[in-house]
């Protein structure tokens, strides 16, 4: 069953050149892919389409059974709440504590505060930030900020997890631990797509790759291998 389907999708920013061309693929529910490709190939742009940060300039995108290409903007928040995103620049809110940053998706979804507190505390302990729950992002190291961003992306158990270089700033041991967390989520049905340059991680976890070159998908997803 396809969770995400792209049909002849193209993307350009404003009046600039087309960054992504004729992308056609689908991601099966529960699949796990690494998105690879050289810098400037369009990985971040593809991820933007996946986390609904952008809409395609042509083609069709279907997510969770709904056409998002022409979806009214009032319906987008509900769609986005089913997607967890680890942004390349983390996008943490600097004046909020690590705890409050991670709790955001649950508070936005109006989950009760006690449940939120329990889950956020548990997850922050799991990513090794149990003693930094009250720390503000500017006081955390790059790796710690990345772990907060990852915790925020997974806290609401999204249907689709999109991560842009999630292990880029953290030491290998923590990186592997984070990947195990993603695998755990994947086992519970979350579809995962991770943009990475880390060959060790790709080899170690052995999930199929999608490869982008010059805005074109040269290796499409392998949907036959679903976890």
């Amino acid at each position, binding site marked *: 069953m396809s969770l995400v389907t792209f049909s002849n999708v193209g993307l350009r920013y404003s009046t600039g050149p087309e960054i992504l061309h004729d992308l056609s693929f689908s991601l099966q529910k529960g699949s796990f892919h690494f998105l690879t490709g050289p810098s400037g190939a369009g990985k971040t742009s593809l991820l933007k389409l996946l*986390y*609904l*940060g952008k809409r395609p300039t042509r083609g069709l995108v279907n997510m969770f059974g709904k056409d998002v290409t022409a979806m009214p*903007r*009032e319906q987008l*928040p*509900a769609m*986005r*709440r089913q*997607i967890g*995103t680890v*942004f390349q620049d983390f*996008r943490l*809110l*600097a*004046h*909020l504590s690590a705890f*409050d940053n991670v709790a*955001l*998706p649950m*508070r*936005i*979804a109006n989950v009760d505060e006690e449940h939120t507190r329990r889950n956020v505390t548990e997850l922050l302990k799991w990513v090794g930030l149990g003693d930094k729950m009250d720390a503000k992002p500017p006081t955390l190291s790059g790796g710690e900020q990345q772990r907060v961003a990852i915790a*925020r992306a997974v806290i609401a158990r999204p249907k689709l997890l999109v991560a842009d270089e999630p292990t880029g700033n953290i030491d290998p041991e923590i990186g592997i631990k984070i990947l195990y967390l993603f695998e755990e989520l994947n086992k519970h049905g979350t579809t995962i797509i991770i943009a990475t340059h880390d060959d060790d991680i790709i080899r170690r976890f052995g999930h199929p790759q999608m490869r982008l070159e010059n805005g074109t998908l040269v290796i499409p997803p392998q949907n036959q291998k679903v976890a």
Partner: protein
Amino acid sequence: MAAKIFQKYRYDIALESGAGAHLVAWVTGLMVFFMTLAFAVNIGLANVTKNWVSGLSGSITVELRAPAADKDDDTATSEARKQVDKKVAALTAMGGKHAAVTSARALEDAEVRKLIEPWLGSAMPADLPLPVLVDMKIKPDADMAALKKDILKAAPGATVDTHDDTLADVSTLVNTARVFVLLLSGVIMLLAIVAISGIVRAKLAIHHPEVETLHLIGAHDEYIARQFRHHTLKGTLKGALCGVAAMIGTLYAIGQTTKSIDSAMLPDVTLAPQEWALLVIAPVLIGTMIAHFTAQKTVLGALKRLG
């Protein structure tokens, strides 16, 4: 409700810090300050008119020219005085008898002096010839033409002042001033709306990255607008309370200062407790509502345009 508004609120957007965090409070404070002033002037003018109208309507003043003193002939002076007294007696007698008059009373010299004091000052010479004034209270449905005729019959040469012209002039002047003050309040409110809308837009631009992040993790416009609304409401309430307090203080100071000025030209403007209450509540309520709805409309409109 106020306690709930002022209690620690968790903003996902850093609206409480940075440049311009308290601009809304300043703008609302100034708006409420001037609105309270406009309201006070309006209420004051209404009271002045009411006092003057109630003092003058329902009465007429009959004026008898002062008996001219003849330096060389005391008998002539005394005769002229007698004539005037006779006319006064005839006029005051009308009080109990005439169908249109309920009462009639000749004003004492001291009262007449007090009336002309604003123009001549308090140091009037003791031998200043004063007109004789008879104040007549008349019935509401009195036939003024007939009454005037009867008065002139009883006191030939008297001048009858029905105060109609004075009342009309005063009313026109005061009503024009009140309309002007109301228009001024409207302009102040309009300026405040424009300023608050600009501040909210600037805040949205400053906090655009945070707003975008919230959108991307699933926040809907209302969730974001609620934070701006709360921040604006809090700033507005603070500003409005400060503005109204400052104006009440100013009015009190003006009241204390003018109290010591001994001038019969200045009308006595005293506000009733319910007018003071209106003066405190109305500008705060109006100012707060204007800021609140302006913020709400501006944020939702701007978020919609973000796409």
